[in-house]
């Protein structure tokens, strides 16, 4: 049926209704984050698009593997074997140290440090939003990923998962403007919070007093406060300290150690409060709210991020 005049009250009325629904939806999504199911359903529709976009890149990597000559593979194999031997030797030492550490902790009746579970995820090559630092990963609730899960690469902490779908998940990098991670200076143990700046190459350490013992080149490791990120993973290296006596705090910049824009593979980490539960979407879905109350530090919202100011000292 084709009508000549389509304008009428119905379109305007629907428009007004949708405006109200949109406002309600935005409020609910921003305040309570209960809309994972909606997001999840819609992401099924988007999955083929992401798959198709990522396909050429995947084909490129695949063809690179297929086309590489036997000699190359043999060389690489030998190299990797050497590297594995070296790391195994180092691991032996570490193993003993870990055992000793555990024994000493037991003597002190300190909380035992448990090991974490890992899973390798691949970054799907899609651009999300040029003004946010998001990446899309090829693991979702089907693999036990949960919202708030830390992700790391071979060099350091990369970020955390913010939306998790069945087959994919979206992660926020530590450099996003609304991200913050509790850190500790490796050398002195001074605790702080590293805020994302929206720039890929540096984080901001805020609320550091003038008399703090800091040097350029100091390594920042995750402090484990806030209980979202596991402890003692490298995060960044201090690159610039600006001590302006007119300001209350000093201006400290740190460069992330993780290769945020070049890594193709990342590790999902299951921390001790999240046992690696295979397909059980209920469990991860309920945790973020509890987390939000107890540890607002890494909640990916600006308002929440503002708060941990006093926790930083």
């Amino acid at each position, binding site marked *: *049926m*084709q*009508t000549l005049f*389509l*304008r009428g009250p119905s*379109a*305007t009325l*629907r*428009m007004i209704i*949708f*405006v109200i*629904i*949109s*406002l*309600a*939806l*935005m409020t609910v*999504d*921003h305040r309570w984050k209960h*809309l994972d199911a*909606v*997001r999840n359903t*819609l*992401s099924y*529709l*988007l999955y*083929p*698009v*992401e798959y*198709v*976009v990522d396909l050429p*890149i995947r084909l490129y990597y695949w063809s690179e593997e297929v086309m590489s000559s036997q000699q190359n593979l043999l060389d690489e194999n030998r190299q990797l074997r050497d590297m594995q031997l070296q790391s195994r030797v180092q691991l032996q030492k570490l193993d003993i140290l870990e055992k000793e550490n555990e024994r000493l902790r037991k003597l002190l009746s300190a909380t035992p440090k448990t090991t974490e579970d890992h899973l390798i995820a691949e970054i799907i*090559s*899609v*651009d*999300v*939003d*040029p*003004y*946010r630092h*998001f990446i899309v990963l090829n693991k979702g609730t089907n693999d036990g990923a949960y919202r708030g899960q830390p992700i790391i690469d071979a060099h350091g902490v990369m970020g955390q998962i*913010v*939306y998790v779908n069945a087959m994919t998940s*979206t992660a926020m990098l530590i450099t*996003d*403007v*609304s991200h913050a991670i509790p850190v500790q200076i490796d050398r002195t143990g001074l605790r702080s919070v590293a805020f994302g700046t*929206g720039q890929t190459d540096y984080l901001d350490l805020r609320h550091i007093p003038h008399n703090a013992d800091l040097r350029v080149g100091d390594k920042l490791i995750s402090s484990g406060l806030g209980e979202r990120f596991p402890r003692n993973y490298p995060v960044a290296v201090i690159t610039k300290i600006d001590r302006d006596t007119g300001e209350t705090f000093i201006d400290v910049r740190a460069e992330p150690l993780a290769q945020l824009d070049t890594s193709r593979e990342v590790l999902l980490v299951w921390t001790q409060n999240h046992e690696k539960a295979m397909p059980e979407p209920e469990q991860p879905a309920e945790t973020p709210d509890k987390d939000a109350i107890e540890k607002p530090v890494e909640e990916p*919202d*600006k*308002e929440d991020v503002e708060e941990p100011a006093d926790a930083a000292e």
Partner: protein
Amino acid sequence: MLPNNLKVALLSLFVAFMLTIIPLPGWVVEFRPDWVTLVLIYWAMALPERTGVTIGWLVGLMLDVSHGAILGQHALGLMLVIYIVHIQHQRLRVASLVQQAIVIFFLLLLKQLIVLWVSGIVGHAPDTWLYFMPTITGAMLWPWIYIIMRDVRRKFGYRAHY
């Protein structure tokens, strides 16, 4: 079986979403036009009885999911744009391509502004004028998008009433 027009419309949206997320080198990322909005504006002009505010809102919601934005942010913007196109489609159709491009510029600007306002309220508004580049590139690309879409629709759509 889906009617041809619907197939073409779905395919064009699929391609538009692909173009939205396809990785680009860093310096062009900010110039990437809002493909989905442009394509949907075309369909709201060509098939207004099929492409109304409901479709606009739902597609906007998909855009929210693909951008990792707050649900409703792009949906609100796209829905309002489609609403304006919907009620003005007869006037838009007879306008010249340049006039259309000017209108499209303001429509895209409206959507960018709505998205910007919501981002600002939530607290992560981009602080660069480059944010408005997609509006300009989108308006400049409009004549080509329009012609390509029209030819595709005429070739594959069984109903060519315009």
